[in-house]
C-alpha cells in the first residue's frame, strides 16, 4: 500500500492527480457558491432562499447542474459560432488553472512556481479576452456593450490589483505564494494585513471589480443591459460562464487569504494542526467569500464614470503611496 502511495507521489502522477483534484474543486466551488449566494441573499432579505430540494435546500446545486446539463444549447443564427463557443472556455480555463499555485496546506500545492504571483496576474488577465470574445461572438448589441464595459473595467482595475501586490512582494522578497505564506508564520499579528492594510483594501476592491460582482457588475448589469456579454448563452455554455465567474470569485478570496491573511497559517501557534491546516485556509477563504456576498446584497451598482474615477483617482494613488511607504520602511528597518 505504501509503495503504491509513494509511486503516486512521483512526478507525472502527482501532477496529474493534483490537477484533477483542482478541477474537481473548481467545479464544486462554483456549484456550492451558487447555492450559497442564493441562500445568503435569502437570509439578508429576510426570506428562506431555496429550501425545497433536500434538507434546507442543500441539494439545490445538484438539481441545478442536472437541469443545466439537460438544457438545449442554443446559439443565435447570426453568431460567430467558433468565437461564441470558445469564449466560455477562455473564461473558465484561467479560473481553473490559477488554483495550481495556491498553497492549501503546508505541502499541498500543485506547483510551487517561483513566479507564482506573476502567474496569477498574467493568467487572470486572459479572462478579459474571454469577455470580449463572448460579447463579439454573440453579435448582439447588448452583448457588445457588456463586453466593452467589461474590457474597460478589467483593464483599468488590473492596474491597482497588480500595484497592491507589490507591497507583499517587497516584504517577502519572493514571488512564490508558498514563500509568502511561510513568511507570515507565528500568530495572526504576523499576517501582512496589518502592515499592508491600504494594499489589502485596494486588492479586495480591485478583486471584486476583476470578478465583475456588484457594485462593479457593469458588464452584466441585469437592469440595464439584461446580462451583458452572456445574454445569448444558454444551457452548458451559460453554466460554464457562471462557473468561471463563481470560481474566479472563490479564487480571488483564496488569493486574498494567501497574500494578506496568512494562507493556511493558524491564528495562534497552539492551534497548529499540521497537515490539517487546510481547515484554516478554508475558513478564512469562506469568510472572505461571505463578505463578497454580503457586499453584493448591500451596495448599489456604480456608474461607469464613478467606476473609472474610483479606480484611477483613488485606488491607484493609494496603492502607489503605500508602495513608497513600504519600500521606505523596508529600507530603514533592514
Amino acid at each position: 500500500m505504501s509503495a503504491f502511495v509513494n509511486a503516486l507521489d512521483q512526478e507525472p502522477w502527482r501532477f496529474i492527480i493534483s490537477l484533477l483534484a483542482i478541477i474537481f474543486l473548481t467545479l464544486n466551488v462554483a456549484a456550492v457558491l451558487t447555492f450559497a449566494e442564493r441562500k445568503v441573499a435569502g437570509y439578508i432579505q429576510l426570506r428562506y432562499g431555496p429550501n425545497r430540494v433536500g434538507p434546507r435546500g442543500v441539494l439545490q446545486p445538484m438539481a441545478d447542474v442536472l437541469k443545466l446539463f439537460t438544457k438545449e444549447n442554443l446559439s443565435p443564427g447570426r453568431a460567430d459560432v467558433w468565437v461564441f463557443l470558445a469564449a466560455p472556455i477562455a473564461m473558465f480555463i484561467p479560473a481553473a488553472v490559477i488554483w495550481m499555485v495556491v498553497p492549501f496546506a503546508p505541502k499541498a500545492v500543485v506547483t510551487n512556481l517561483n513566479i507564482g504571483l506573476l502567474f496569477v496576474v498574467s493568467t487572470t488577465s486572459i479572462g478579459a479576452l474571454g469577455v470580449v470574445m463572448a460579447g463579439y461572438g454573440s453579435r448582439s448589441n447588448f452583448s457588445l456593450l457588456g463586453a466593452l464595459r467589461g474590457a474597460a473595467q478589467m483593464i483599468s482595475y488590473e492596474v491597482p490589483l497588480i500595484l497592491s501586490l507589490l507591497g507583499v512582494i517587497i516584504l517577502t522578497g519572493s514571488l512564490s505564494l508558498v514563500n509568502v505564506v511561510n513568511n507570515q508564520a507565528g500568530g495572526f499579528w504576523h499576517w501582512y494585513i496589518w502592515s499592508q492594510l491600504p494594499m489589502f483594501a485596494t486588492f479586495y476592491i480591485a478583486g471584486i471589480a476583476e470578478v465583475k460582482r456588484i457594485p462593479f457588475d457593469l458588464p452584466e448589469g441585469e437592469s440595464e443591459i439584461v446580462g451583458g456579454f452572456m445574454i445569448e448563452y444558454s444551457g452548458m455554455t451559460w453554466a460554464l460562464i457562471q462557473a468561471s465567474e463563481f470560481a474566479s470569485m472563490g479564487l480571488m478570496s483564496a488569493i486574498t487569504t494567501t497574500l494578506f491573511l496568512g494562507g493556511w497559517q493558524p491564528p495562534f501557534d497552539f492551534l497548529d494542526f499540521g497537515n490539517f491546516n487546510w481547515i484554516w485556509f478554508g475558513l478564512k477563504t469562506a469568510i472572505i467569500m461571505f463578505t463578497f456576498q454580503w457586499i453584493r446584497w448591500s451596495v448599489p451598482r456604480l456608474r461607469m464614470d464613478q467606476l473609472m474615477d474610483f479606480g484611477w483617482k483613488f485606488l491607484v494613488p493609494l496603492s502607489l503611496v503605500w508602495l513608497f511607504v513600504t519600500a521606505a520602511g523596508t529600507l530603514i528597518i533592514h
Partner: protein
Amino acid sequence: MIFVFIVLSAITLISSFGVVISRNVVHSALFMSGAFLGVAGFFAMLHSPALAALQVLIYVGAVTVVILFGIMFTQRPQVRRFRTILNRQVGAGFTVALFVGALLIYVFLQQDWGSTSAGHGPRTVASLGRILVGVSSGTDIFALLFEVASILLLVAVVAAIVISRRKTGEGVERRAEE
C-alpha cells in the same frame, strides 16, 4: 521536448497564418493572441517562466484586449473592403515574409553566441531584474534604456490625456479670447 517544440511551433505558425489570412479583423486579433500564447510557451520551454508570464500578461491580457477594444469602438465587425486589400497584397507579403525569414535564419546561424546557449538565461525574476537595471554583472546601458522607455510611456500617456481631454466651457472661452 521535441514533441513540445513541434506542438508550440504548430500553434504559433497556424495562429500567425490565421492573423494574415482571416478576412475578419476581430478573428485576426484573436488569432494573434494564440500566436502570443505559443511564444509564451517557447519562453516557458526555455526555462524562462518569468518572461512567459510577462508575455501573457502584456501581450495576451493587455495588447490584444486593447486592440479588440479599439476595433469594436471604431468600426463595424464586417468590413467589405478588407477582402480586396488582402487579395491584392498577398503575393508581395508572402515574398517579403520569406525574405525576412531567410535573413533571420542566416543571421542566427552566423552569429557567434559566445558562452550563452538556449535555456540558460536568468531563471528567477530577481536575477532578470538585476540584469535589467544593471545592479550586478549587468550592462549599464540596459538601465538607461529602461528609464528612456518609461519616460516614453509617460509622455504617451500624458499626450493621450491632452488629446482626449474634454474642453470645459471655461477653457474654450479663454481660447476664444486669445
